[in-house]
Structures are given as structure tokens and as C-alpha cells.
């Protein structure tokens, strides 16, 4: 089963490699990993997506908690939460392709943020499924490049993951 796990990490050099190293050393899956500092500069927030059966996920959480640099851990999949991912897509956009690309962007609430005579860069935010759907809707052969951030997640409701 897919799980999305949020971590507060000590913002120290090497902290991220401890997390990544744990996954490779113990043979766990890691599908996506995002990390950036928070409003507190001593902490960084990590969102990682992994898959495994219940026992494996339990071990992943325990092993992550055991890392000295992990301050807090939350399995977002356990309760209502929001996931968002940012995607930038570079497409070939010659004259004939433009109306369809603009229509698609409107339907998916995407934005065109770079334009040349023969290309667009389209920015799109949403769940992973929405981004997948957009990519499959783009007419075949037009996609030049896709950059995805991997999901960021946060729980619904007033409670926050804080120290």
C-alpha cells in the first residue's frame, strides 16, 4: 500500500542522506522524496512516498524514528490529508497545437509561464493523479520535458506537525 510520510528533520548536513541511506540499506521502496527548510531554520520538512505491506511500513516508521536527526514523524495516510505536487512541462507548441494546449491548460487550471515561437512551459499543481491525467491528455509527441516535484503533504484540520 502507498504511504505518504512527513518528517521534521534537524536541518544539518547529512540528515537527508541518513534518510535516503536507510531506504537503500534496508531495501525499502522510495517513490518520491522532497525536502526543504521550514519557517524554523533549524528544521527541514521532508515528505516521502513509499509502498509496502503493513509490517514493512511499520518498520520504516520505526527505523526513521530511530534516526537521531528525525525530530517528528507523521504518517499522513492514517488520517485525512492534502497532497499537492508541482509539475513543469515543456511542450512543443507550434501554431496548430496552441489552441488545444491552451484549452487543456484551462481545463486543468494550469498556467503557461514561458512562451517561444515553438514552445510553451506549462505549470500545474495538484495531486499526482491529476498531473498524470494532464500528461496523458497532451497530444502525443508534443512533450519535450517533464519536471515533477514529488508530493508535499499536510494533514487536514487545526493540528500541525510541530516540535
Amino acid at each position, binding site marked *: 500500500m502507498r504511504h505518504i510520510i512527513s518528517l521534521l528533520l534537524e536541518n544539518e548536513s547529512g540528515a537527508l542522506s541518513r534518510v535516503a541511506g536507510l531506504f537503500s540499506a534496508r531495501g525499502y521502496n522510495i517513490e518520491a522524496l522532497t525536502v526543504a527548510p521550514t519557517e524554523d531554520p533549524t528544521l527541514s520538512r521532508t515528505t516521502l512516498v513509499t509502498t509496502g505491506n503493513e509490517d514493512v511500513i511499520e518498520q520504516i516508521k520505526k*527505523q526513521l524514528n530511530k534516526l537521531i536527526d528525525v525530530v517528528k514523524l507523521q504518517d499522513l495516510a492514517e488520517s485525512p490529508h492534502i497532497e499537492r505536487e508541482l509539475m513543469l512541462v515543456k511542450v512543443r507548441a507550434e501554431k496548430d497545437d496552441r489552441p488545444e494546449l491552451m484549452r487543456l491548460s484551462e481545463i486543468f487550471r494550469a498556467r503557461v509561464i514561458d512562451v517561444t515561437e515553438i514552445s510553451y512551459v506549462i505549470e500545474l499543481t495538484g495531486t499526482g493523479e491529476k498531473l498524470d491525467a494532464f500528461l496523458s491528455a497532451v497530444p502525443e509527441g508534443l512533450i519535450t520535458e517533464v519536471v515533477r516535484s514529488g508530493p508535499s503533504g499536510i494533514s487536514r484540520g487545526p493540528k500541525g506537525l510541530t516540535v
Partner: protein
Amino acid sequence: MELSGAEIVVQALKDEGVEYVFGYPGGAVLHIYDALFKHQAFKHILVRHEQGAVHAADGYARATGKPGVALVTSGPGATNAVTGLATAHMDSIPVIVISGQVPTPVIGSDAFQEVDTVGITRPCTKHNFLVKDPRKLAETFRKAFYLATTGRPGPILIDIPKDVTDPNVKVTYEYPKTMKLRSYNPAQKGHLGQIKKAIELLLKAKRPMVYTGGGVILGNASQALTDLVQHMNLPITQTLMGLGSYPSTNKQFLGMLGMHGTYEANMAMHECDVLLAIGVRFDDRVTAKISQFCPDAAIIHIDIDPSSISKNVRVDVPIVGPVNSVLKEILKLIKAESWQPDIAVQTQWWNQIDIWRSKQCLNYNRDSDSIKPQFAIETLYKVSNGDLYVTSDVGQHQMFTAQFYKFTQPRRWINSGGLGTMGYGLPAAMGVQIAHPDKPVACVSGEASILMCIQELATCKQHDLPIKIILLNNGYMGMVRQWQEMFYGSRYSHSYVEALPDFVKIAESFGHVGMRLKDPKDLETAMREAFTMKDRLVFMDIQVDSTENVYPMIAMGKGHHEMHLAPELA
């Protein structure tokens, strides 16, 4: 107090109460060695290889419960220390390794003797640090000792670039008295509700079994364990790492369990209805085939490390907490309930165990003309009256010692259980002997293992360490040979050591006493003679039967009830 980084390293170790540092100098730690020369705050033990330094610190830690400290230089000094760190990590031993690093401005430039030490050691330490500022040194040392010795203990490495120890840069030194980390809060006591559930199971059990490991020794819970086991008249088995935390001479002790465990211990594991697992990690050498592990048992598991619980085997009642306090709590509550054993039920279970015991699964040919390795260990036990610190290397000799030496106290049996590091025994014995200068220390080894750290014989000479090396010399890598005989059609691929040195001459050339034994009749007298030489290292090259195998044995993929017994018993 204004100190240089190098002086801070020395002062911090002093403030931690460190008595010994095992080390080997080199370019990146020269400032530290210079500070050591001036201060002499503690004793430095010069080893002959960095692997030996870390194993010695590890042996010191296992024998005392105090953290062991090693000091090595950058590059090859650090990589040589890696085997020692991994050994300590697998067995949860509190060791602090201080490694030199190239100066911060050249880190990443492939400088002379540069290696990414924190990168290499990350998976084989509990935590590690790279200190780039002398003002951070004191705090880092306090953190390192705190992390190494609390919760589930483990090795910590502190990597220090050479410029951080510059004698000309002085900073204010103040050693933190306490340490608290927001991201690290090991459990202080077990959950009372879980403890009550465990008691309920234990009191209802008809065929209870206790299985304990190194965690009982690390958690200083031997007395609490013994009290509980004896109060409830429970049968108990122990892992390789757990031996000594319950007196093996006591009738409730069924011997070691697992791959080379006794028939009675493994059968009782297979048949028990409640298993109390304490300070163990359900290692594959212990559980045998997981799907057949204790098929009828409800399992209670007490451990300080939550990640040990339900990692390999799902348990019914997990209790996360220090084993000592949890065991005391269990006994207190059981006594409060004024519980009385059901004698008939207990007798039935003990009768069954006695039937298994009557197999005498450890029997061997005592009339042999050659020295049997089992006989050598039994003789060692007899000669030392069971009052000995014993280290070992890895292989058949290690298993024979675990089976035949009856340990009755914790911290007496010191070996590399998790990583299985050949070469561990001699340097570990140095750490033990330094910790206990007036106690007899033996290193049981094999002719293959001993060669992996043989250079430490020089350290033993320099520091007058009167270790007794009990070498069970069968001319083969015995355990490899045994597997090849049993599972590879007796194709002894590269397990025969064709060019063995003359160990007596080796010992003598290092300034020690060497003996060679071939006849079982001479063994006891010779061992007694060796132990009377209280100020000399004696290397006993004991030529043992080269084809003896360790039995019982559970082959990979088999269950506890599917043991190979010795051919004459099967």
C-alpha cells in the same frame, strides 16, 4: 577556560571520566597526540592496527559497561576502524571513535589520506558527527557519550578536521553537564497496561519459556532476570549474546538456543505456549525458519528499541522500555498477586524438558586419542573454576565455547555475535585485560581467526597484557569446512589453510610464551601451568581433531525441531 581544539578533545575525554584510549597516530590527529603528550589525562594504549583499537575499546566496553574510546587518523585509519564500528553496531556496544580528517579547506579535494568518513560510517554507527568548528567540540563530545550509552547503546564516530584541532586557535571551553536532544527520547519505563497483559499471559501459561539476549547484559538486568525466572520456576534459554546473564550452572537453564543450540532449548522453544523474549532481536541464527518459529506461542517481547519489536517475528505483547525496570515491575506485580504455581502443570512441562535433556545432545567422544575441541573448552572451564573473562573469534571454537563453558556472570563472555568478525578475539581481550588487570582473561580462537589480528601480540607485549590464548588449531576454517561437508558434498573449497605458521615461534618472537599441545592427557597440566604465569601472555597452540563438527545444528531453512544431532546420537 581557553583551549585549543586538540586540548578540548583531551579535556572532554577527561571530563567524561575516560581512563583509556586505544589509538594509533597519524597526520590528521597529530595535534591531538601532541595535546595528549602534554596532558597525559588518561592512559593511551598504542595498538598495531586501527581495527584492533576499536575492538579493544569494544571489549573494554563489554567487560565494564562503560564506553570504550578509540582514536584513529584520517583515510586508512578511519577505514580500518570500520570493521570495529560495524562489529560494535551489530551488538549495540557503546564505543566512541574519534577520527582525524583532512583540514576543512581541502575536504572534497581528494587530499592525501582523505576519505568521506562520516559517509562510510553512517550505516555502521548509531550516529556520527563531522565537527567543523572548535567551539562545537565540547557539545559534540557530550552528545556522543550521551547517545552511545543511553537507549539502545551503540558506537558513535566523531570526525575532526585537522584545522579544528589547531593548537594556535583557542576558544572558550565549558563542558555541558547535561544533554537533552529534542529528537531523541529513549523510553524510561515500560507501559503498565502492557506489563499487566504480559503478566496475565505468563500466569496462565502451561508451557512457558524465557528467551533472553544481549539486551539483558547491556541493560544490567541480570539480577532482575534471575529473580523473576527463579520465582516462577521458568525454563530459560539464551542467545549467544545473552550467555552469563543467568547462571548456566542452574537447573532451569536449558543452554543456548538456535542454530547450534541444545536439543532441549530448541524443542522447548518449538513446544512452548508462552514465550517471554527479553532484550533480543529474533536474529535468523536464533529463530531458524521464521514460519515455524514457536508455532503455538503467544509472544511477549521486552526491548528498549521499538524497531526491534515485530521486525522479524510478530509479537503479541510488546513492551518498550529498559529491561531492568520492566522485569522488576513484572516481579513486583506478580508477588503482589500472591500467585501460586500450579505444581501439576509445572511438573508436566519440566518432565517433558527432562526427556529432551536426557538426549545429552552435547555428548562427544571422550575416549579419543586426539584432543577434541569440546574437551579443550571443558578443561579450560575446569582449570579456571568458571571464573574467567573469555573472548572469542568466530567459528567452531566460538560455538564450542558457548556450549561448553558455563558462564555464571554477565560481561564474562565477549564475542562478535551479530557481525561475526574473525579477528575480534585478541584485541577484544586486550580491552578486557586492561579493564580488569588482576583478573584472568582468555581468548579462545582458531588458527584462521587469530591470524586476522595477530599483530596485536606486539600491543600485548608493550602493555604487559597476560592474556591466555587458547588456540583450537584444526588446520581448517572449521565452520566453513563443516558446511562444506554437510551441504557441499565434502568439497572443501579453499577452507584448508595449507601454510600455517609455527605459532609457538610467533608467540616467542613477540616476546611471549608459546606451548604446543597434542595429547589430551597433557592438556590440563599445561593449562594450569599457563594460568600460573600471571604476568605472561601464553599462546597455547592446541592441535585438535580436524574433523570435529559442531552439533546440534539446524540447517538453513529448517525449524527448531529439525536439528541435526551428532552422528552417534542421531
